[in-house]
């Protein structure tokens, strides 16, 4: 698990978009959101100390 990975993929996606490679940029954006969901699962699934 590497926290910098989604930031790196997002950065690559922005560079690809700037170079005019739209499809590749969207693909990298999808990879980034999947990694983000993984991190959300890692950091956000503990028990909250409140009654919901």
């Amino acid at each position, binding site marked *: 698990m590497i*926290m910098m990975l989604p930031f790196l993929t997002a*950065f690559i996606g922005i560079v690809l*978009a700037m170079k005019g490679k739209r499809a590749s940029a969207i693909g990298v954006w999808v990879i980034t959101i999947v990694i983000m969901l993984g991190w959300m699962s890692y950091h956000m699934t503990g028990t909250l100390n409140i009654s919901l």
Partner: protein
Amino acid sequence: MFSQLTHATPVEHRLSYSLNLLALLGISFSLLIAFFYQIAFHELPCPLCQLQRLGLILVGMGFMMNAQFGPSTIHYAMAIIGALAGAGTSLRQVLLHIAPGDTGYGSPFLGLHFYTWGFISFVMVIAFTSIMLCVDHKHFSTPRLQRLGWIAVLIISLFLILSLANTVSSVMVCKLGPCPDDPVQYFLPF
């Protein structure tokens, strides 16, 4: 980096182009404020804070691509999905600190903590994107590279630099692994 833009078509949808750039500037401004607090007040980003920053970047990519290639439902979907992920993360952090007596994480900004501002921002992004989908609904066509003005190049470059800065910052705070829940110092020298 912008070399291919010399062959691009002129911007056809001026209002959409301007509003998307304005939204991208707002996203960049939010990331700048977060960095200002990180550097000036040594408030290191927690894991959920980093995920909210990532959500902002994902939203910004949607707005940026609207300016770069013309408005598209896919670009707006990118902004909405990024905002939903960011809103979920910020709401989780609000709930972590909602109990009476909890002073929250980090210092407040204009009376609210950054994760609360984050939630408000992501909801505003969803509302803005919904309105833009109505404004642009007659303009959706095959995305083509647009000829960008110098202001657009400036805003997109700022967004790119902030994205890179967040990548570097995440390495400095977390090294090449998961982030500590309550970071107090950089693992790498600043």
